[in-house]
């Protein structure tokens, strides 16, 4: 009953039928920010050709969205990423850019359609297993200034509780951030979903060429 009411409400007031395009993004695009709200580029998009500039075995992605602009990664940037092995997953250092696999099941349960397979995040640190929010907050507030802003603390608490409830208190989780209209947004993901670490950055120039640039510092 609740589901049908929700579905009826979404028909009129939700995104479906208004802006949602059900076309999935090609796997070489990474959403900077929300994989639901970002525009999925078409498969015939020319930008992925730029990924050839990264030599070696690194995986390349084109960034879609402006949610990492405050951290120095722009819309249309190309990134080269190193695969994170199973045994390296608990050694990801803070202030690194990572590519996280989108948990489509989670979005499905929240009645949203994520059109991207991957999303770009900026790591802040691990969430202690079987802990409580206050202990976690005390620990993270020593290292990260943004959580000291009262509205951000509320957002962090909400995200923490949501993730712990969904994935369970025993699942190793990682805290990362992104920006929505320049305002900090936190994400708490299971560590197993973190697949790549960003190691190189390429930027589109005004003349249409691409050049490698420095990865923004923390």
């Amino acid at each position: 009953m609740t589901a049908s009411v929700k579905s009826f409400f979404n028909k009129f007031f939700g995104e479906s039928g208004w802006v949602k395009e059900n076309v999935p993004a090609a796997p070489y695009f990474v959403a900077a920010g929300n994989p639901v709200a970002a525009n999925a580029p078409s498969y015939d998009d020319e930008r992925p050709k730029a990924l050839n500039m990264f030599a070696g075995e690194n995986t390349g992605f084109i960034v879609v969205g402006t949610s990492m602009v405050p951290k120095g990664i722009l819309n249309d940037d190309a990134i080269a990423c190193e695969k994170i092995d199973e045994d390296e997953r608990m050694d990801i250092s803070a202030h690194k850019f990572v590519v996280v696999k989108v948990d489509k099941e989670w979005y499905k349960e929240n009645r949203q359609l994520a059109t991207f397979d991957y999303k770009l995040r900026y790591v802040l640190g691990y969430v202690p297993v079987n802990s409580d929010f206050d202990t976690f907050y005390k620990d993270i507030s020593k290292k990260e200034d943004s959580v000291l802003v009262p509205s951000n603390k509320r957002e962090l608490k909400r995200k923490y509780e949501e993730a712990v409830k969904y994935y369970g208190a025993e699942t190793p989780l990682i805290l990362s951030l992104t920006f929505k209209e320049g305002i900090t947004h936190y994400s708490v993901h299971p560590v197993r979903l973190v697949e790549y670490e960003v190691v190189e950055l390429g930027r589109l120039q005004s003349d249409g060429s691409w050049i490698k640039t420095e990865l923004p510092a923390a």
Partner: protein
Amino acid sequence: MDCVNLLAFIQIAVAFDFGLVYLSNTHIFTNILDSLLEEMKVSCARLIKKAHTVCEQDRGYKGLAVRAKRAELIEVINNLEFLLDPQNVRWDKYAYTGIYSGVYGLLCLLLIGLKECRIDEFIHNFLLISGEIILIYQFINLIQLSRISNKKISVVKILYKGVWLCGILGLSVIIALTGFYWKIFQSFNLPFVLITICIVYFPFFVYAYRILKVWYTIKSKIRKCEALLKELENCIG
């Protein structure tokens, strides 16, 4: 009151309404907001630069109050920079209000011109019923504008909505023909004029409101940024 006098008002609005469907980055209406943003960007460039410098200098301070103030200031600057960037302004979803009003405006132009709006009881009823339906749709649109994301919307999808609306208007024809409706207004002229003006100028009001809202939001962010900068400077002496 003779409805024919309305024609001139409707004609101007209809052109504006359909223009919203093709509100690309080069459109004159988007240029107005872009120019406003550019002007505001120049006016607060010094403030943003100063805020960045102070935030960078204060990195060494470990006091909780300074850290919190700095974080809040960084948050406001990031938000301000986002708001000031014309590339982040998208008009796609406004096209829906444009197409709904445009279709109704066109319908009025045709029917008023055709019958001079005096003779036919059926046309009176049809215009009122379809106007009321579109007015409801526009209010749903208004709620949607603040709720939905800024995704790109293809013109095909918007035009599809226009075709779908024509289907709804077809339903109004049936309602008007069968008389299966509850008459809200007893007279025709005054309600019709008011409804029509509301509908055809609705996108214009929404467009003007958006520009004012952007201006006000940026102004309040600038004030907040100045206050935080002052507080931060006081904190570190």
